[in-house]
């Protein structure tokens, strides 16, 4: 095969690889889809577990070709005192335009509220484009209660120190939703692929600075124990929260069983 032939074959091969990687993407967008996830949830500090809102920093990263290494989503959620209602904001990374130069990516945010009866609401926001080169910076998400009301909404700030944008998470111009409570326990949550299928640690399971405001709307306070004493309360054997430093945590695998560092779901001691 001559040089032109080899070049032609190489081009065809590249096209085929591209079509395999991106079979149907009219907008050149790629969702970092996930499946068969386990979920672990960061327990709040027992003494400071109530708040009006939760801030959570998540780190931007390179999503790789076709989201290789993408492992999880993340959320911040707030339960009421009775644990009968909760409101939750979350996100999943996606390539906004992988074939563009420069590439862009997005946080695909959602907000949902549920009651223990199974009644609730939910909706997605496609978010804003972020340069694909934006790696290693911390973005910031906030689920918020409008002070003095039972209305909730959802905010996002690029690169932590930027300006905050309210996410319109539902069609029809909906930003706020009445969910019948205004403050309680603040959690962070992440999902993971089962071990062996995709164990890459991504931005979504790398948390920093989960904070809350007390009922009086004083300044932001740490929700997580800076000494690393908080662990997930969902019992997901094989994964545990790891204290990275300061107020930074990530979820890492551990040899099963590794329940010693994960507080069981419930049914603790008797009085």
């Amino acid at each position, binding site marked *: 095969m001559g040089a032109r032939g080899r070049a032609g074959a190489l081009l065809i091969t590249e096209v085929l690889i591209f079509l395999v990687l991106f079979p149907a993407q009219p907008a050149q967008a790629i969702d970092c889809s996930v499946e068969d996830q386990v*979920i672990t949830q960061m327990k709040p500090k027992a003494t400071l577990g109530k708040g009006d809102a939760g801030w959570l920093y998540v780190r931007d990263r390179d999503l790789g070709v076709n989201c290789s290494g993408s492992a999880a989503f993340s959320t911040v959620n707030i339960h009421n005192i009775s*644990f009968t209602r909760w409101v939750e904001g979350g996100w999943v990374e996606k390539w906004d335009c992988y074939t563009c130069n420069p590439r862009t990516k997005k946080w695909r945010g959602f907000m949902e509220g549920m*009651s223990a*009866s*199974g009644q*609730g609401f939910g909706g997605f926001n496609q978010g804003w484009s972020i340069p694909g080169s934006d790696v290693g910076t911390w973005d910031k998400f906030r689920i918020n209660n409008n002070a003095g009301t039972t209305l909730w909404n959802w905010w996002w700030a690029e690169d932590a120190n930027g300006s905050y944008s309210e996410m319109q998470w539902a069609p029809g111009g909906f930003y706020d939703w009445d969910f019948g409570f205004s403050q309680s326990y603040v959690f962070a949550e992440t*999902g993971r692929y089962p071990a062996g299928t995709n164990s890459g640690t991504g931005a979504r399971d790398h948390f920093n600075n989960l904070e809350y405001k007390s009922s009086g709307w004083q300044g932001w306070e740490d929700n997580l124990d800076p000494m690393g004493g908080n662990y997930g309360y*969902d019992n997901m054997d094989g994964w545990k929260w790891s204290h990275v430093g300061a107020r930074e945590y990530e979820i890492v695998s551990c040899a099963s069983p590794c329940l010693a560092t994960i507080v*069981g779901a419930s049914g603790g*001691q008797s009085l």
Partner: protein
Amino acid sequence: MLAMLSSATPAAFEPTRDEPQLDWDHWFPSATALSANASLPTTLPFTPVEPQSIDATAARYLSPNGDAIAFIYDSPTYGRLVIVEALPDIPDPTMRAQSFSNQVAQSKLPQAFGSASIVSIAGEMALLTSSEDLSRSMVEVVKNGVQFSVLGPSLQPSVVVEAATAALGESTSTTPPLSS
């Protein structure tokens, strides 16, 4: 919690409408079990009330911060029944009534699932919510400064209203038609 579907195609995830991780045996995460024979705790920030007229003995659990109590029954009449008592999520009655009305209106919007309606339990305005298929329901009502949440893993709307009415000790319930 986010429900994840197949990853075969893009956009293969959506906000949850599936079963959240509810612990119907203990209710609270990291719950503390209380003796069935002991007096109700005096450390709660409200005066707890032993639910009435439920044909079973309750297992009792305290929330992690000790600010709520759950009574869990296996009732011949209602099956698994959970009654949670706490300070009201919305202390002001006027604001609570407005929020109940807002939630009923929201339940009819396209982003919502399940149903919500306002009912009367023990002479108090209560919010009745149900799953999309009406197989699971909850009543929330405030009486004498305590919020009662009455629910179960398999309770239809009319049954949870009956259970809440029995638990709160009066039979003044009227049940308007459910919203859809």
